[in-house]
């Protein structure tokens, strides 16, 4: 590492690199030993399947079970994956040693090259070590669980879209940033939010908005000042850093977290990702999920009311008619899948999803700002929070 590089880099990063590189090398040492002893080289990797995912009801977290699978180089079906796993391990190891911050796309490019060989019919064939990024992404996930290190711990960066504003000060790198002094703009959350230090905060809750444009309207109209909120947007499907940042706001600052999404299975899924994480990536859940996050809306009963509870809808008959979008087949299918998830098996969620399946209708948050920005800001959101009209 040159002196200039050292100056530009924080000492935390340097320490993290050493730990990760050592752990990686040790994990693959046993494969080399097996080969030298003439034994079959086998990677024993924790299973990332649904059946090996455990929902820890108490902590509200998805955890990886104790199940493992074996990836042997001598197994025809696994040989290619074995090769890719070793290749990926080597690339990450080299990046750590060379002080780089690769993205997953970089890893893909670094590993992609082609093998020319003679096939069983004697034709000359070219095969790429991997063709598409989803192949390299899959072995990266295998390495995360095999080595038991998250990608951030291996200094792998990703594209980040999350933004935040609110009455709060944080320290990132060597800088102290006042999130209440962002003007009309906002603070874009970094890739490694664990390195953020919370200095002080003056807020009562966190509101996470799925859509960036709604975030901007609320920010511009002064929502966070008026209601003492930390306002976050994930700008769509939340990335890992936004999830980790929200989790830390909740866990360390004890702020309740409310999530506002479209009223459709995709919106619920975004909520579910914040709260639980993805089933196939359950190994991340322990650090990225916010188990106590609440689904503020838009809920089906906000649209249609609920006769059993006597709740009145927020929309008139004719607003419903114009704003509602007919559910697609994929929506219906996803909703039916959600019904099978443990954490959706509560009374409120079952009622919500079944109402969707019955009405086969969905709604965007913009339908509410369409109705009026101040309706959303001063009526809908405060009423929902005050009357605890949310789903957990």
């Amino acid at each position: 590492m040159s002196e200039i590089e050292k100056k530009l880099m924080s000492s935390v990063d340097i320490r993290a690199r050493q730990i990760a590189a050592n752990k990686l090398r040790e994990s693959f040492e046993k494969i080399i030993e097996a080969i030298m002893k003439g034994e079959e080289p086998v990677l024993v990797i924790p299973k990332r399947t649904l059946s090996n995912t455990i929902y820890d009801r108490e902590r509200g977290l998805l955890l990886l079970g104790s199940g493992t699978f074996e990836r042997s180089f001598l197994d025809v079906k696994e040989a290619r994956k074995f090769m890719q796993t070793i290749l990926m391990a080597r690339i990450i190891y080299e990046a750590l040693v060379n002080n780089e911050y690769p993205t997953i796309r970089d890893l893909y490019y670094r590993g992609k090259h082609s093998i020319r060989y003679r096939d069983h019919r004697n034709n000359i064939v070219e095969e790429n070590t991997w063709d598409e990024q989803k192949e390299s992404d899959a072995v990266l996930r295998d390495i995360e669980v095999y080595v038991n290190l998250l990608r951030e711990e291996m200094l792998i960066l990703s594209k980040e879209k999350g933004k935040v504003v609110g009455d709060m000060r944080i320290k990132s790198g060597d800088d102290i940033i006042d999130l209440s002094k962002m003007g009309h703009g906002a603070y874009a959350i970094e890739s490694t939010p664990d390195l953020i230090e919370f200095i002080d905060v003056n807020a009562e809750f966190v509101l996470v908005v799925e859509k960036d444009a709604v975030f901007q309207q609320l920010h511009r109209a002064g929502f966070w000042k008026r209601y003492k909120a930390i306002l976050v947007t994930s700008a769509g499907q939340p990335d890992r850093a936004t999830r980790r940042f929200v989790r830390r706001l909740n866990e360390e600052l004890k702020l309740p977290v409310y999530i506002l999404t479209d009223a459709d299975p995709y919106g619920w899924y975004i909520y579910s990702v914040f709260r639980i994480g993805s089933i196939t990536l359950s190994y991340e859940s322990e650090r990225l999920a916010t188990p106590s996050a609440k689904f503020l809306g838009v809920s089906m009963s906000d649209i249609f009311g609920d006769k059993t509870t006597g709740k009145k809808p927020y929309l008139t008959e004719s607003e419903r008619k114009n704003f509602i979008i007919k559910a697609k087949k994929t929506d219906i299918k996803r909703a039916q899948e959600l019904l099978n998830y443990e954490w959706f098996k509560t009374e409120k969620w079952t009622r919500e999803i079944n109402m969707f399946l019955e009405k086969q209708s969905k709604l965007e948050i913009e339908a509410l700002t369409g109705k009026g920005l101040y309706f959303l800001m001063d009526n809908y959101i405060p009423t929902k929070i005050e009357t605890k009209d949310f789903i957990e």
Partner: protein
Amino acid sequence: MSATAEKFRSISPAEFFYRNKEIAGFANPARALYQAVRELVENALDATDAHGILPNIEVSIERDSVKQYVYRISVKDNGIGIPEKYIPEAFGKVLFSSKYVLRQTRGLFGLGAKMVILYGQMTVGEPAEIISAAINSRRIYSYRIMIDVRENKPIIVSKGVWPNNTGWHGTMVKVAIEGDWSRAKQKILDYIKRTAIVTPYANIVFKTPDGEIYTYLRVTETIPPPPRETKPHPHGVDLELIKTMISETKAQRLIDFISEEFQGVGNVIAERFLTKYGFDPSKDPKTLSKEELELLVKALKEFNEFRKPRADHLSPIGAELIKIGLNSILKPEFVDAVTRKPVVYEGHSIIVEVGIAYGGSIQPSEEVVLLRYANKIPLLYDEKSDVAWKVVSENIDWSYYGIVFPAPLAILVHICGTKIPYKGVGKESIAEVPVIEKEIEEGVRQVARSLKLYLARKQKEEEMMRKAVTIIKYVPEVARNLAVLSKANPVRIDEKELEMKIFELVKHKYGEYLNNISSPYDIVIGIE
């Protein structure tokens, strides 16, 4: 109301077909040329192989140098010849033939040669010329004849006789008709080629009007046993046939009639049959009442202890000859064939034969290449309405047999019998008779299974080699990366050493299939 009286009259069969030449396949000059070649070649083959003679057939078509639409067709065979007294009527009287007996021949309607001559007479007007010598005949006869359409009888224009010094026997027919070679050419060439496939024991020479000569030489001396005459089988007789048989039989007791006039019935069976249905065995069959006749027909159809029909009067090509024929003409990678057991269709035995040819010189195609034959006659027209087409295109799920189209697949279907259910007089497609459909389907399945086995065996060997290669190709890549990961270890391990060790492991597992491979670099050419 202008009711006019009707004039009634009778017409001769010759006149009927003269008026309706289309239904016998003489719809236009191109079709007529093809049809004429076919009719004459089939007669030639019937006169040879049906009598155990190895056929030598010479076909020639010449274009008239002045009248471009006139073609002279001549077909010469080395067959049994025609006895002199029958020559005029055999060629000059419609519905006169040697083929009205229960025996499998190619021609069945007894129409063919007469239709050619009739059509020639309508369009060109020259007499037909026939030269023939029967076996052991001391003379060779030559006739030039035309047909009296009104009376349905031959007109002998001239006649000649020569001494037969060389012991030649056979027949040569020469007819001039209006034709269209350019449009008929492809079908006629196809017809000759497909004929050659099922007669690999024949020499066939064909001279075209363009002066080309196509020669199909004999590739085997084996000839299928000739067909023989036979009696009807009790299953599938009809009322009309029974009446005719009774009127002609010499038997005076019912039991004799049943056991003598039918195929597959002995004395014991006949008696058991008559007892079961309550007939008096000693009754004179000629005294049976209308109701008794009806009952007898029903009983004959129903009784299931008769022996199965014999096939000895039929002349299937035989699986071996089909394989030889398919091999010699199509040059495939795989060939198989089957001759099915005989079945009964309306009192007549029918044998279905199926051949299969796959790969090699056969071009892959979106559909099965179907070679249809009936009594050794290639069928070329109306393919899509033939029962065999239905079987290969609808009934059979080829993917079950591992065939995915486009595929290089040819199926040969041959139906032989004393009675073939053609859809029309043109004899170009077979009707969808359930018993025949079933036989074809079973036959196709049988040869298709055989193909499936062949393909499966071939695949297995490839499979093991494929597996080994799948692993070996990654050995250098894996070794290289592991070597990097071992760099920081106390004892650094060499890439080449790792490579060798890993390859040893693969060899241990797939050893028997890896004879020629001693290093991963016999497989891997480069990593870039």
